[in-house]
């Protein structure tokens, strides 16, 4: 029972497939909704720190556990339908 059936997946013409990794999706989300200030350029380490802070800020806004990490519930929240107005004013 528990073995999933082998399904055939096809590529549907015209399908909007957002080929993004989870990290890319998160970065795009944090930028789009104002959690990361896109005007500031950062180097690698600073970027990691900032992303963690941004994630925490986003998690606080969404009422999620503030882990600062891209966990499953945060990723799920980022995939939810929502309003396009940024959460953090710029």
């Amino acid at each position, binding site marked *: 029972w528990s073995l999933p059936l082998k399904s055939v997946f096809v590529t549907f013409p*015209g399908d909007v497939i957002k080929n993004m990794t989870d990290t890319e999706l998160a970065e795009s989300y944090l930028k789009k909704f104002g959690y990361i200030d896109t005007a500031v350029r950062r180097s690698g380490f600073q970027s990691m720190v900032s992303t963690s802070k941004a994630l925490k800020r986003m998690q606080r*806004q*969404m009422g999620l556990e503030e882990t600062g990490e891209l966990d499953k519930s945060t990723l799920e929240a980022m995939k939810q339908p929502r*309003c396009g107005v940024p959460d953090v004013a710029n």
Partner: protein
Amino acid sequence: YKTFEGDLKWDHNDVTYRILNYSPDMDSDLTDDAFARAFKVWSDVTPLTFTRLFEGTADIMISFGKADHGDPYPFDGENGLLAHAYPPGEGIQGDAHFDDDEYWTLGKGPVVKTRYGNAEGALCHFPFTFEGKTYTTCTTEGRSDNLPWCATTADYNRDKKFGFCPSELLYTFGGNANGAQCVFPFIFLGKEYDSCTLEGRSDGYRWCATTENFDNDKTFGFCPSRDTAVTGGNAEGETCHFPFVFLGQSYDSCTSEGRGDGKLWCSTTSSYDDDKKWGFCPDQGYSLFLVAAHEFGHALGLDHSNIRDALMYPMYSYVEDFSLHSDDIEGIQYLYGPKRGPSPTPPQPSTPTTDDSDDKETDHTDETRPTEPTTTRPVEPTKDACKLTKFDTITVIENELHFFQDGHYWKRSGRDKELQGPFSIAARWPALPAVIDSAFEDTLTKKLYFFSGTRFWVFTGKSVLGPRSVEKLGLPNSIQKVEGALQRGKGKVLLFSGENFWRLDIKAQKIDRGYPRFTDVVFGGVPSDAHDVFQYKGHIYFCRESFYWRMNSRRQVDRVGYVKYDLLTC
């Protein structure tokens, strides 16, 4: 709540709005009404008034658009971003834009307003029966002119009430043809068209000519979406073609086969294999009323709240009986103050109303009801299964569907599987609590298992064992309740809780090794937070709120429908 930096707000209380265009998904009357109700959400708690303008510049200009729609913030296709709005001010400030790649409804599936016919524009009643067959969408059956129609009561043969559904063969909207219907075929840039087309436009809206030759006459209109029209894919606006062939197999309904995301799709021609024309099947859509009320909050000066139940929370979620959260009220009253003076008193009816007063909607609800059927069952509303939006559990006992809710149960039994009840749980199964989270019948021993919270009971006839703790079965103490049970094979049952499920060996009364497993890994395409899971007539059902997702033996979601209509047969 949060306001925009500088507490941006209108400097006058008589705010104006203008609707610049409409979505093909919803009738303009329904759209107007949704926007009016969305404004009323805010005018009910502030001194603000909202006046609609039909020309010129209004404070709040409302429009639908797709992708790049003329401002610096393009939309992103279906799902994701639904809409946005600008805080109060001049120019684009205060305006609200809605993504027309979304499927706009009132949040519960297609809302189809009829035209012509004899129902005076009433909404379609789905499902309805016509000559013994049940229809859940508009149909062209019984007509030779190919115009889709629907009944506006539950039984066409009894009531004979009907109207025509949106169709380009009946009318267009926008454009310059005053709503005239499409003329097919028509000529555009020397080429002949037999259906609405996207050609010649960059905004993604389907249009047609309303005379035989657009090149000569230049009259056109936009095509309304049929309730059966697909969204997305490469055939948006066209209708599913049943049956259709996909990878050599014939399909009579929408399927998730071929996709990894569980979304239901269909071919719009008889053969996907040959034509590769497809789209997603219509779902419940997004409530224009709820999204508009949120956007208008921005247009009045409110930023996003971090309170999940507040209207100004950034994520969309459908709520049946909407009322403004105290956080939203505090926010808007911080900007504009509270409403003063008495509320207007509605005129009293001259004759007494009938017994359906409990069913009346408030102005804030997001549900538009079709004309009620002419007969109703004289039951107390609180005990009418058809008026419940959610059940504690649904299960099959002695081959009959049972619906449990707060001390009562209903069952579909008898030759015609009519809904019977309510019955008292305590009367039939003494010792059980009022709320049953899950239940199943062991097909081998016919013992009945009931779960409530972290306890379970086992009934053999009238004798009962329990309550016992679910931990005794090997379930972790972290789970708060068992939400669904699926009998699988001999002596095995799957128990669902949260996003996981476990396999119980009934004989050993122990959970098998290798569990829990994630529900969404094994059952793709169903809600991971289903609150009822059960098996009925060879299909597995996952219920969430008033909807069910039906899965076939190949674990493909082959139908999504209403518990109320399809399972309760209300």
